[in-house]
Structures are given as C-alpha cells and as structure tokens.
C-alpha cells in the first residue's frame, strides 16, 4: 500500500460533493468535495506500489481539463489508468448535476 499527495492550482467552483466507485478488484472509490481554496488537493491510497509517475500523469491530464477547487480522496484497488480517469470524470459529472 502506498499513499501519495498531489496539489494543483484551480479556478472553478464545484457545486456539491460526489462519491463514486468501490474499493474492489480493478476499481477505486473517489470522494470529491468542493473546496474554498484556489487549489485542488488529491490524496491517493493505492494497493499497488511504485506507480507514482503514472498517477501524476493521469491527474495532470484531469486537472488540465478541469481546474476544479476541490479536495479529492482516492482509495484504489489496482484500477488501470483508464479506469481512474473514468471514475474521476464520473465523480465530476455527479458533482455538477
């Protein structure tokens, strides 16, 4: 198990919090909450060690697209980068609808 923290400057507000996914094989849960600060902070807890650069790449891409002022907690159980990106998009979608 490995824990990582990331931070991104952010400009856009999020309407409300959202929770998606399950900490099951090949899946992850995402807890997304609005933040009053001008940045987004992400905490990742993953069952697979040593993939920090890939997590950074996935999150860089997400926040390049969506500059959201938020606090995000991810609990991961071996999801692929594609799965992580989809869950993040799903959480964002739920937080705006």
């Amino acid at each position, binding site marked *: *198990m490995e824990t990582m923290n990331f931070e991104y400057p952010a400009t856009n507000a999020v309407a409300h*919090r959202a*929770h998606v996914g*399950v*900490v*099951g*094989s090949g*899946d992850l*849960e995402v*807890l997304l*909450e609005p933040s009053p600060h001008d940045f987004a902070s992400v905490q990742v*807890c*993953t*069952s697979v060690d040593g993939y920090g650069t890939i997590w950074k790449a996935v999150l860089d891409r997400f926040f390049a697209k969506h500059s959201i002022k938020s606090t995000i*907690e991810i*609990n*991961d*159980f071996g999801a692929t980068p594609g799965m992580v990106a989809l869950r993040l998009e799903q959480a964002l979608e739920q937080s705006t609808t």
Partner: protein
Amino acid sequence: MNSATSPQVLALHPFRRSFIELNARERARSLMDEGTFEELLGPFDRIKSPWLPAQGVVPQSDDGVVVARGAVDGCRTVVIAIEGMFQGGSIGEVSGTKIACALDLACEDNEAGQRTYAVLLLETGGVRLQEANLGLAVIAEIQSSIIALRRHTPVVGVIAGMVGCFGGMAISAALCSHLIATREARLGLNGPEVIEQEAGVEEFDSTDRRLIWSATGGRQRFETGFVDQLVKDDVAAIRAALRIAFQQGVPAKNRSAEIDKYLAFLAGIDPTAQLDASAVRNLWERA
C-alpha cells in the same frame, strides 16, 4: 439512476433490471421508494477500518456497509447493504458495528411505537480475517440485535449473489425472520475452498461450480426450507418479494426455533453415504 426504478419507467421498460450488477449503495437505493433514501454514516463521514491500513490493505470510506433509512413500498424501513466487492463483504469491527447499531436503532423505534422494518442485503464471506476477534465479536452483536428486533418486526435477509453469504453471517442469515435468495446466491457455513482444504478434493471440489450450487445455491436452499422466497435477479422481483415478506409479518415460529424439525432432518441423514442435492431434498420433504 433512481428514476430507473420508478413504476412509470418500469412500465415503459418491462425488461429485467439486474440487482446483482449493482453495488451496495445502488442496491439499497433501488429497493427504496424514490426520494426517501437517507444514508447514515455515509462515505463522507469516513468511519472506516483503522486495522486495514495498519496491515497494508486499502480501506474503504464506508468500510463496506451502507446503512440507509427510508421507505420500502411505503413502509418505514432501514436497509443495510454489505458491499461484496470490498474485501469479499467481510465483517470488520466498523462495518459490523454499523450493522448492529442500525438494527438496535430500528429496535428502539419499534419499542417507541414507530413501526420500522429491517432489510439486510447479505453479500459476505463472514468475518474479516484481518480483524479476527473484533470481527467475530461484532458478528455476535449483529446476531443478538437481529434476535431482539425480530420480536417486533420482520428482519428480512436478501442474498442475491455473486459473493453469497458464508461464515458467521450465514448464521445471522438463518436468524432472519424471512430469507429471499436468487438462483445465483449461495448460503453456507463454510465456503467451497474451506471445505476442500479441510476435507479434501474428493469430498468437495471447489472448482466444480455445478456441485457448489447444487449443494449451497439459492434454489437448493429454497427447496430444502432454508430460504422462504426464490426470486429472479431483478430489482422489481426483489421489491415484490420484500412486500410479501412485510405482509407476512413476524412469523409465529422463527426458523431458528424449529429445533425438532431440523433434528428430525439431521437424524434422517446417513453420514456413511455420499448425499447429492436431490437426496437432500427428498430427506427434507420427509422431515
């Protein structure tokens, strides 16, 4: 998501909506009347296992149990759903305490004259081995909470699959007033791998799916009186089964009080002969 279960939408789309494919939170929501789902100790309360990270296991923000208060078919109900995809639906200190406390709150409501039904969505391998004794202790709490509550109101267990219901939670299932299962469900004290490990592959081949379901599958458990209703893997079918269970109310005699009946059943078994599924059904019919 919730609108997909409304009667109007179901009338427009009369195809089945799988219950098994839903996660625990979606399952609880799908059984409740639209707009009534209210979660207690949800993911953002972050009441999770302190023991899993200490052993290098990623925790889940709700510890794999969803407790929701609301209405089922117009009846005030607490729905407790175990997430089978997280750690095999195993019961740890936190997840088990959530279940026991929710049942106790329902018991208090009933004692105060507020009729509250309880539905347990059982998708669990039993105790969480990483939390050993704490998990076992809390399963005992769950069982005593079921026994206290079932005097006032039916406690309805639903085993849908695909994890099934095993270990100490199989005993909890057997204490429920009413049990509903699908053909995909399994109910047993020991899981197939445990039986094979302890008794040998000649006794029980844990890779033989036909054998496993013939012994512990939902249909067999229904045919042999351990399950009250066998339903399709369909949200509407499970809702209809809950309605029937609520209407039947508190049973005159709980299954776990039918001691003579089960002793007669056991007395009819010849342990020297290998039993198959149909032989067990025949014995049950004679008991």
